[in-house]
């Protein structure tokens, strides 16, 4: 088991290094030079040279990469060109917001998806099941940012009960010690702040959750359907248990395992999906920062964000793999 974990950690490190190399090279090859964007009217060739030297762009890509790697190994990811602050602090400062949003979205998706699957199974071969299938099909075929626009129209304009932009109301009188606003507000017992945060994050989280919920619903329903034909479920029926009991107590515990594995893998895509949704709702997370970094051709910041995303993805995959091993003892010796 330990050897397996060590091997996976080594693979993770190699993956991250590969990502770093690719990102470093690609963002320097694609057109768009941050120095050119910084040039004021009247700048001279000397000004260009001075700025290039200031940000190290006068060196070869290989030299730049070596300097960057040396810095990273010491925890220094460079300084953002547009924000003029250390990249490590910036990306780690934003990560909690994105994780909170993705977690709220995950909870909503699990509740919605499980409900749809259970209802579809309970009323299988009826119009209700057909309605569940159509609903999940629609939910999946419309992308999250479009759901965002629909939600803004519905709950932001026509029936304006949720906040359209931001993460928390500027007028709220609270100083957070960390960037985990929701968790901190809960721990402090500030329900007014919790309510305010949720009123801001509900729509972006729901936009992210709807397609995710559809995937959960479809897979769980399929698993439940297959489980419902197994002998022990039939036995439960013959004992006289009602259909609700059979589904929830007998079939669900077995059917849910493949879905949980999928949830782990899909969660990484959920975090990736925050990029556009955060922008739409002006949510101050990592995704929103990523778009600004790309627009400004802020190379150090882009590198930092991509590396952090890659780290999250690989760690979640690692966790899912390990969880799978824990849940399935046969794999421990594989």
């Amino acid at each position, binding site marked *: 088991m330990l050897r397996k974990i060590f091997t996976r950690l080594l693979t993770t490190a190699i993956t991250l290094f590969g990502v770093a190399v690719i990102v470093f090279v690609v963002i320097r090859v694609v*057109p768009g030079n941050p120095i050119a*964007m910084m*040039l004021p009217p009247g700048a001279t060739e000397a000004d260009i040279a001075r700025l290039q030297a200031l940000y190290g762009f006068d060196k070869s890509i290989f030299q730049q990469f070596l300097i960057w790697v040396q810095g990273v190994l010491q925890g220094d990811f460079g300084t953002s060109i547009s924000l*003029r602050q250390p990249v490590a602090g910036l990306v780690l400062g934003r990560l909690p917001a994105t994780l909170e949003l993705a977690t709220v979205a995950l909870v909503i998706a699990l509740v919605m998806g499980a409900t749809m699957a259970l209802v579809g199974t309970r009323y299988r071969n009826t119009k209700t099941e057909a309605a569940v299938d159509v609903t999940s099909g629609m939910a999946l075929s419309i992308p999250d940012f479009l759901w965002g626009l629909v939600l803004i129209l519905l709950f932001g304009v026509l029936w304006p009960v949720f906040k359209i932009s931001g993460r928390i109301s500027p*007028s709220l009188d609270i100083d957070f010690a960390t960037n985990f606003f929701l968790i901190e507000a809960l721990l402090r017992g500030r329900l007014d702040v919790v309510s305010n945060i949720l009123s801001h994050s509900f729509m972006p989280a729901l936009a992210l959750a709807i397609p995710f919920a559809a995937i959960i619903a479809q897979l769980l329903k399929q698993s439940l359907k297959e489980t419902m034909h197994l002998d022990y479920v039939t036995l439960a029926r013959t004992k006289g248990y009602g259909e609700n009991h059979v589904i929830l107590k007998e079939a669900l515990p077995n059917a849910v395992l493949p879905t949980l594995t999928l949830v782990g893998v899909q969660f990484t895509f959920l975090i990736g999906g925050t990029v556009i949704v955060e922008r739409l709702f002006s949510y101050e997370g990592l995704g929103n920062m990523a778009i600004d970094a790309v627009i400004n051709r802020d190379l150090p910041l882009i590198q930092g964000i991509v590396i952090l995303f890659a780290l999250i993805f690989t760690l979640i995959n690692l966790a899912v793999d390990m969880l799978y091993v824990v849940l399935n003892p046969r794999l421990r010796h594989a």
Partner: protein
Amino acid sequence: MKLSRRGMLRSTGAAITLATFGTPTFAAIDELVIAYNVTLPSWNPTVGLSAVNPTLQGYYQSVFDNFIPQNPDLTFGSGIITDYGWNEDNSAIWMDVREGVTWHNGDPLTAEDIAWSLARVADPDTGSPIQFIWGKITNIQHDGNRVTADMPEFEPTFFKWMSFLTGYVLPKKYYEEVGAEGFEAAPIGSGPYMVEKFERNAFVRLKANQNYWGGAPEFKTVTIKFVTDAASRVAEVESGNSHVTLEVPYEEFDRLKAKDGIEGTASPISDIGMIFLNDIDVMTDPNVRKAAAHAIDKQTIIDRLLSGYGIAIDTLQTPDYVAFDPSIEVPYDPELAKSLLAESGYGPDNPVKFKIQSTRGFKPKDFEMIQAIVGLWRRVGIEAEIEVYEIAKHFELRAADQLAPAAFYNWGNSVGDPSTSTGFAMFGPSPHSVWDGEDTFNKILPLWAEADESKRIEGWKAVDRHIAENAEVIPLLQYVQPILHATGVRVTPHRSGALLPHLMTRA
């Protein structure tokens, strides 16, 4: 009234939700909320990428004072520097500093602050992107409320730059105490608003400076939310979550300003849309350039694509700029375009071909405008292939003089001086110009240091005429900025495009 069970439930649910999350309202406004279209990356208005980003100047002008302020109509006012001028032979400058001004922390603003602010941006080591202007003064001294400096190389636009990019007064004592990082974390200025709270990439909360030398602003608290998505800004103002927003699509502007509780203001700003012509390939043929210019029906494009919100221009000067010359015209004349092309052997059956680059979504309907222009060109015998590029790529290609034969861009020039429009855009050695023609170069060269102001302006008008007659660039339009606001707010638009809360009052 008969209440159904469903209706009762719906009303109760709505009441609970509204009580929980708050009710948006257009009623009496205590705290002004603005949904702004760009985020603020840095609080230092004198260095880095943010310092030369025109869209950020509204934030800076709320907290800091320019050396010399600009009025909403782009004229120059009297501010921290009340009076200024050159000595007789234009080798030195003097400035008088307003007395009785205090910084946000209560310290007095003195001539020493002005001298230090200027010396700081003049020093190449501070990283000021406008050092090429500020570096033209040396030996900066202060005595009483007067600041003096030598200017070995005369710069006629020096005082105009004091209202422009990086032209801000910073507090010497405070800055030296807290350092660059401390200043970024807790900036203070002498402007109409003080920074109360700043959440990077989320919002800035401003508190009125009750001691502002120009009079305390009307709204005691202003929150500027960073809402970069246009659809979200529309929703913000439509739902009442924000009282003011800007840069929304013109169709949405027309729709919303007709609604109860919302009003709209659409005023020209100093930004222009233009097509750079790079004198390479077919663009070395004057007939092709002139045909391309005469084949564009600017007014119809403005009317049809921009709902009429734009002002057609024929030079790089807008009517607000000091060197605007209404007698320079490049009329829409497709027949003339055809005959010019025919002189060079081109026509609808044998079209001249070149590439045109365009942004898509960087400015309102930019790509659609270029599509329309390409359509108009096709009618006279020009076949242009559109290449969409990001604005960062445009900057890189322009700096390297590698733009396509035609390339769409927008140019801002809030001080309205011809040197900062025609000058930098058309003077070959500038990294912002792709026009290398010697005629234009020779006409512009003596104007950089022309000391006689009327002669200088007339000189630029002559340059503009030469450029228009030879179609060396294709100016298209002056942009109009749409601002939506609640009826409870009166907004005074600023020609620079900066949305300034201290110019807003209760209606």
